[in-house]
């Protein structure tokens, strides 16, 4: 089919992209949600470890360390559940995106200060041997996830979502 329509490829191709987008968004949304749930689930069984992981960054004052470390796994799981089910997609993607930005800042700062810590992204955390740090890998993964979150904030409309079932999707401009 595409070859037959070759002369006027551009408008139908754009239309096809528009039609395919909600499915692409669905994959991105569920993928991001699964990552968030995996990150939260790996920490929630050992909250003291999560607190220690946050403390190891030496960025937050002690009362905030305990608050952030104990709340983080729960918040990640809730945001992940929202993304997987497609409820409040835009806001969940924004929330998790901001969290990821905070993580990236923390990792970059730990790297810049020469700390030897495990990022604690999926459990664990704390001081490790200096040759075992993997800041670059952690940061690249973070940046990729931030990009996915940003795309979902901009275009949250997707298939198989509670947002569409509950009629919560943002109204399309052209319909207004």
């Amino acid at each position: 089919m595409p070859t037959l329509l070759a002369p006027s490829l551009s408008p139908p191709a754009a239309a096809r992209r528009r039609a395919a987008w909600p499915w692409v968004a669905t994959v991105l949304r569920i993928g991001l949600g699964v990552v968030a749930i995996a990150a939260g689930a790996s920490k929630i069984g050992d909250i003291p470890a999560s607190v220690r992981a946050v403390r190891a960054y030496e960025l937050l004052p002690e009362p905030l360390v305990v608050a952030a470390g104990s709340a983080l796994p729960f918040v990640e799981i809730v945001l992940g559940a929202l993304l997987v089910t497609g409820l409040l997609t835009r806001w969940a993607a924004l929330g998790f995106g901001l969290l990821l930005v905070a993580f990236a800042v923390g990792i970059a700062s730990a790297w810049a200060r020469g700390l030897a810590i495990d990022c604690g992204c999926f459990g664990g955390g704390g001081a490790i041997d200096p040759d075992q740090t993997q800041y670059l890998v952690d940061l690249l993964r973070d940046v990729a996830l931030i990009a996915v979150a940003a795309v979902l904030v901009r275009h949250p409309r997707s298939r198989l979502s509670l947002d569409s079932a509950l009629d919560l999707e943002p109204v399309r401009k052209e319909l207004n």
Partner: protein
Amino acid sequence: MAEDRLSKAQRREEARLAAQRIKEEQERKARRQRNLAIVLAVVGAILVGGTAWMIIAESRQPVLADIELRPEGSTLSGGIPVGPDGVAGVTEGAADDAVTVAVYSDFMCPICSQFEQINGETLAELRESGDIVLEYHPVTILDRTSQGTAFSTRSATAAAFVASEAPEEFVAFVDAMFANQPEEGTPGLSDAEIADVAREAGVPEDVAAQIESSAYLGSGADDPETFGPWVNAATSQASKDLGRLGTPTITLDGEKLDVEKYNWTEEGVLAQAIEDARG
């Protein structure tokens, strides 16, 4: 006239349809807003309530001073000090200017075992001569590497139990635990195996039997009649005191040993660091 009337009727019909469309659009908008309000309220309540609950639960964890059952003679930083007599919790006989050498280790940590192999003898000699007080800090940060058996927590709890019930065999028990260290990623030693290590170290049978039967763990990590709460609070205190808690960490009179300057894997370096700390 007829044409006029028809167009009037048409116009009326069109106006009616337009009104209906506006009404439907308004209802749709109202429904969307109502759904959004409900969803936001529910999600918001879950987030705020759950987050608050997690934070409160964690910040209510007791600190060491609040723990009822602590190993005899242990410090409020979570250390079990040993002096010249080699008895857990007893430091009498050490020199007045003895350096307190605190060793934070997890029984599952391979580098901690390496540290013991390389420096154990030196530290024992310095301790026996009263030049240092050796402070054991069993911390539990590697529970996730024992396939769910929480070997780090069990072994640290066993160490605290031995320090209390068989203080004279404590040092030998810790040495034997490192000598029999399981590999990371395995279930670690069972309670029966830990009991065998205790027997090997000369721990009396009645104490070893309580390890073998898992009685030393009581009904769980927060059973106040066991050393579980002490072990958890001690690890938490170690994390607060050290900032970045990794194992092994060595402090000399509370100062973290600078491993760039003093590479303890080399013979004599740790002794030198201790001498320098004594000044």
